């Protein structure tokens, strides 16, 4: 078990941090989140050029052949900068799904395009705010005229408005199945959702006899579990980055903001509150490193490690965002200050894959309780 990064991984972090300092500054984030599209195609190209979109994709499919520890480093940095980007949808969810399924043709066709940034993909499993349903939910796939057609509604779908390809879990007569749908397909209606977090976009996707390509999968439910566990690790990385930056900025502010003749960070109320955030961050980082390591080296241990990451880090991250607003006081409550971006990102990340109770329940299952 390795819980510390090596020099190469630290170099990767530095490279990504430099890129984001340049292309995802607070001012840019403001601009991008206010745009209609909600992400920055220029940054997307840069991420592709640095090989970051295909980090976990084997070299045969145009990827970097690196691991989840490395991808976690990238996600930490994207979280730090609260970058609005479809990275999580495309380079995490969709990429992991293609790798988890058994469809060599689809892999050969799609993975290079995803890794190269030519296409954006996403995964559509959720049908409402609860945890993912292994059966495909109320969305059904039927075979007609030698092809498959989908009917149903998936929501919320991450990056659903900008995705070129959507990987959908749907019920078939022989159990759940995975399908690839082209964003331009007939019978697909995409509706932009309103969101709590201005740096993260979602859509509702309604399928009405939408033509779809069935993807080969020996065990679609097991594939979903793997995608969910890897997503848990990836999201944990983003959250650790959010926490770390929220803490840094707040500590900096607490050192210079004077009230009643002293920097507010000298008061125990603030000092101890920030110490708690720091402690939670140190714990979260340890949990993340362990989860990412298991994703690369101990797949049997992954389900437990992933459930642990969701359970521990979700509330810890939100506390950091909440503390950032609180200890900035009035200024932290304004739209102009960045505190709210961390607060909202933290809350949306905590609830993205269903309520915290679902994660605790899964952890209990995996502990054999």
């Amino acid at each position, binding site marked *: 078990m390795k819980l510390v990064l090596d020099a190469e991984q630290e170099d990767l972090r530095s490279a990504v941090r430099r890129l984001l300092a340049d292309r995802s500054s607070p001012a840019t984030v403001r601009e991008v989140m206010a745009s209609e599209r909600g992400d920055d195609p220029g940054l997307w190209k840069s991420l592709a050029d640095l090989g970051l979109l295909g980090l976990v994709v084997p070299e045969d499919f145009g990827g970097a052949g690196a691991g989840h520890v490395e991808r976690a480093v990238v996600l930490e940095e994207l979280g730090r900068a609260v970058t609005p980007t479809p990275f999580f949808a495309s380079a995490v969810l969709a990429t992991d799904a293609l790798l988890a399924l058994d469809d060599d043709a689809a892999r050969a066709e799609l993975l290079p395009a995803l890794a190269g940034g030519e296409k954006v993909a996403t995964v559509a499993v959720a049908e409402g705010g609860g945890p993912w349903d292994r059966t495909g939910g109320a969305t059904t796939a039927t075979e007609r005229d030698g092809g498959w057609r989908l009917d149903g509604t998936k929501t919320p779908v991450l990056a659903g408005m900008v995705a070129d390809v959507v990987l959908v879990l749907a019920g078939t007569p022989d159990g759940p199945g995975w399908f690839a749908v082209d964003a331009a397909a007939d019978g697909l209606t995409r509706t932009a959702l309103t969101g709590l977090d201005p740096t993260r976009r979602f859509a509702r996707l309604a399928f009405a006899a939408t033509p779809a390509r069935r993807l080969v999968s020996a065990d679609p439910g097991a594939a979903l579990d793997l995608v969910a566990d890897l997503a848990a690790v990836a999201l944990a990385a983003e959250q650790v980055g959010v926490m770390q930056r929220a803490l840094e900025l707040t500590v900096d502010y607490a050192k210079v903001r004077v009230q*009643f003749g002293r920097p507010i960070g000298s008061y125990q109320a603030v000092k101890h509150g920030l110490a708690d955030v720091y402690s939670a961050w140190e714990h979260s980082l340890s949990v993340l490193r362990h989860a990412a390591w298991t994703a690369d080296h101990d797949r049997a241990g992954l389900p437990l490690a992933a459930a642990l990451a969701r359970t521990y880090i979700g509330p810890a991250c939100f506390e950091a965002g909440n503390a950032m607003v609180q200890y900035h006081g009035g200024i932290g409550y304004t739209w102009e200050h960045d505190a709210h971006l961390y*607060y909202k990102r933290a809350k949306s990340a905590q609830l993205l894959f269903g309520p915290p109770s679902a994660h605790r329940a899964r952890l209990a299952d995996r502990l054999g309780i």
Partner: protein
Amino acid sequence: MTVVDEKGSGEYRSRVREWLGAHVPPPTAGLPPAEVLRIAKEYQAALFEAGFAGITWPKEVGGQGLGPAEQQVFSEEAADYDLPTYPLTIGMGMCGPTLVDLGTPEQKQRYLPKLLRGDEVWCQLFSEPGAGSDVASLQSRAERTDDGWVLNGQKVWTTNAQWADFGAVLARTDPDQVKHAGITMFIVDMHAPGVTVRPLRDMSGKSPFNEVYFDDVHLPADGAISPVIGEVGRGWQAAVTMLGHERVSIGASRPSRSNSLGFDAVLALARREGATADPANRERLAELYAHERALQLLNARMRQETQAGRPPGARGSVAKLAGALQLRRAIAVVGELAGADVVAWDPDDALSADVAQGINSAPASSIAGGTNEVQHNIIGERILGLPKEPQVDRDIPFRQLKVGTQGGAR
């Protein structure tokens, strides 16, 4: 599950109930600001005519000269309504009572009747970018001229400034005094040249507050009516008086019916999400209810004690703090119930939108009107009598103090 205190009957209560039933307009939320203001003024004028404005204010300034019992009856009856008086709350709750306490006869005569009738709207200008919890570190300054004062500086978090006719503003009049001395409270005409009001967008995307800039604003002191509230150099004492009225004002307010993080709303969300069967959710809902109900009972007990002659005093901070912490508790519960439904939702899903708005505006309760940290200090020092921390800025002339983020390393 709406729980209200028992309501007695009585002639006064019947009159109030009848009048409210006949005169309260439909909720004004969502209407254009000018409409909101017009409706507020109309309602207040009618209230005044009916003899329900300023129930506890002296008769000579247009009030009713009645006691806390009548005020209590009115508040209880009004709790069933969403009153349209939002634009007038600062004047009615803070500026007006302070003028009653400290105003000269001329000031009272000039300002209070129009305030009570809703003819003129007031705001309160204390907070500054460098002076939040530590209001006394304010840097706005007023300098004497031949015919009055000239005011310069910046204020923030000014509720209702956008439609205010007058403001009660704190400014430093002697920077060579220690920080709490050398401050004076003034009445400022918000339509005077040099006053600029800019809406301030909060983290939930709304703009309920303003920034106010004063550039060489003339405060005339050559007429019969002084612009000074209280005495020159005793603005801090005037501010304490006004903040006392603020605390009472916040403490007495019931949770709004439309509070999307209140128990009723959270239970409705739970029902929509089909989440009430899970024993863990049932526990969470019970816990949320328990804290909300305990706070209601505390407020009810403090009202009864007030009627029995023991006003809440600093215990208003207990209720204020508990209300803020309750919102944090509710945020956790709604996340458990709704999961991603409060992360992203269909544009026509008003319930999710309300809950998300609640999540994104909840931090205000832990900051505005004194942060949770300040409330904790008040409870610890003023109620429990615990010793203060060492005071490092008490004996130094204000001119030599560092305030806000001045001189910070970054």
